[in-house]
C-alpha cells in the first residue's frame, strides 16, 4: 500500500480541522499580532526575531491543538466516525498516520509557519543576514508545537471523550510549562541539573541559546538538552501510532 490512501484520508479529515471560519480567524489574528510585534519592537537578529514573535504564537497553537485537534480526535471516537475511517481499505497505522497529519502536523505547522512568514517578510534584511538563526529557532518552535500536539493526541486516544481530552490536554500543557518555570527559578547556577532540565523542556529556547551563546558559555545547552524534546516527540509520535494500531478499541 502506498501513501496515496492515507494522504486521501488525511485530506478528507483536514477539511474538518481547517474548517472556516475558526481556523482562518486564528491564522489572521496570530499573523496580524506577530506583524504588529515586528513594528512595535526592534530586532537586529533573525534568531531573536523568531523567538519573540513565535513565543506567543506557540501558546495559541498549543491551546488550539489541545481544544480543537485533540478534542476533535476524541469527538471522532465518541461519534464512532473513527470506526468508519478504520473500515476504509487502509492499515491501522495508515489511519493513525493520516490522523496525526490532519489533526496535529498540518494545523500546528500552519499556525507556526504563517506568523513566521509575516515576520520574515517585514524584517527581510535582518532575516537574510541571519537566515540560519531564524530557521533554527523557527524549527525549534515547530518541533515544540508537534511535541505538544502529539501528546494531546495520545491523551485524546486514551480518554476517548472530547471534553475530557481538551481539559486533560490543557492540564498537561500548563503543568509542563509551570514545571519548566519552577525548575528554572530554583536553579542557582546555569550548570545546575534543574536549569539543564528546564532548558531541555523548551526546545526552542535551547536552540535560541545554542545559536546566540558563544561556545563555553554556561547558558549554551549541551547535546542532551538539545535532543530531549525532538527525541520525546519522535517517541510519542511512534507510541501514538502503535497505540492506535495495536491496542486501541473504539
Amino acid at each position, binding site marked *: 500500500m502506498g501513501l496515496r490512501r492515507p494522504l486521501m484520508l488525511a485530506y478528507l479529515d*483536514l477539511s474538518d480541522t481547517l474548517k472556516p471560519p475558526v481556523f482562518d480567524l486564528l491564522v489572521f489574528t496570530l499573523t*496580524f499580532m506577530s506583524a504588529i510585534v515586528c*513594528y512595535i519592537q*526592534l530586532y537586529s*537578529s533573525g534568531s*531573536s526575531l523568531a523567538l519573540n514573535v513565535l513565543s506567543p504564537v506557540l501558546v495559541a497553537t498549543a491551546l488550539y491543538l489541545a481544544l480543537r485537534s485533540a478534542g476533535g480526535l476524541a469527538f471522532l471516537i465518541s461519534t464512532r466516525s473513527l470506526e468508519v475511517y478504520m473500515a476504509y481499505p487502509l492499515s491501522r497505522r495508515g489511519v493513525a498516520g493520516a490522523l496525526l497529519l490532519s489533526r496535529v502536523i498540518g494545523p500546528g505547522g500552519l499556525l507556526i509557519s504563517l506568523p513566521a512568514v509575516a515576520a520574515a517578510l517585514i*524584517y527581510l534584511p535582518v532575516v537574510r543576514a541571519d537566515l540560519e538563526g531564524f530557521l533554527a529557532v523557527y524549527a525549534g518552535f515547530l518541533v515544540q508545537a508537534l511535541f505538544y500536539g502529539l501528546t494531546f493526541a495520545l491523551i485524546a486516544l486514551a480518554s476517548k471523550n472530547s471534553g475530557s481530552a481538551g481539559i486533560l490536554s490543557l492540564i498537561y500543557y500548563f503543568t509542563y510549562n509551570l514545571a519548566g518555570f519552577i525548575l528554572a527559578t530554583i536553579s542557582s547556577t546555569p550548570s545546575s541539573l534543574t536549569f539543564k532540565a528546564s532548558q531541555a523542556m523548551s526546545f526552542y529556547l535551547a536552540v535560541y541559546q545554542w545559536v546566540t551563546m558563544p561556545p563555553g558559555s554556561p547558558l549554551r545547552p549541551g547535546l542532551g538538552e538539545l535532543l530531549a524534546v525532538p527525541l520525546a516527540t519522535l517517541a510519542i509520535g511512534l507510541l501514538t501510532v502503535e497505540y492506535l494500531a495495536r491496542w486501541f478499541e473504539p
Partner: protein
Amino acid sequence: MTPSTVIGRLLMALGLSLILAGLVGVNYAQTSPLEAGGSQFLEENYSLVVAMYSMSSNGTAVVKVWNASQVFYVSDLLADPRSLLHSLSTFNINLSQSSFQHVFRLGVVYGTAIVKANRQIISALPGLSTVLKFNIRQAQRGPDGTYTVTLHVRPGTAFMVFIVGREGVPVRYYLKYQVVGAERLDSTLISASGLALVGVGAVLYRSMRPVTLLGENVIRRLRGRVGGRPSRRG
C-alpha cells in the same frame, strides 16, 4: 474544501494581516533611540549603578557621567543585571534600591540601582575581575571632567556602570541607546505585498468555487460557450 481554497484562504489571511500591519507601521513603527538621564545625591559609602540588559536587539549604548570621582564598567555579562546586583552581596556590595524599566519596543531592560559598599571595595573591583569572572575596567576621565563609556550590547548580554560620587555634589548621568542593524522593509511595500497576496488568494479561492453573477453560474456559462456546448438560451 480543495487545496486551492485552503491556500487561497490562508494567503488572504496573511495578506490582510500584512496590509493592516503595514498601515500600523506607517504611524507607529519604532526607530528612535532610547535616552534617559538623571541626577542622584550619593551618601558616603553608596554608589550608583547604571545597567542595561538586551533581550532582543543589538545596539550601542553611551553612558556619560558628570561629577563622579571614579567610574567602572563591565560589559558582555551573560545574565540579567537585576539578579547580578543581588549576588554582589557576596563581596559586601549590598543593593540598597533599584529601579528598572522594560522598554519593549527596543527589547531592553535598563535602570539604575544604588548599592551600599565601601568606596575601597568599588575601587578594587578591577582587581576582582578574575574572581568575579567579569572583565571590570576603569573609565578614563575626559578633559572636561566627564566620563564617557561606549558599550556594545547584543541579545542576552548586559552591562553595568559603577559610579562613585563626590562628596556634597549630586552625580549626573545620561544614557543613550541606539539599536543597530534592525532594518525593516518599507511599510508601504509590506502593505502592497499584502494586497498582492489577498489578490492571489482571492483568485485561488474563487477559481474552485462557482462564480455567480446575478444568480447565474458564470463559469459554467463561459465553459458552455468556449467548449461549444449549446447554451440554454441558444
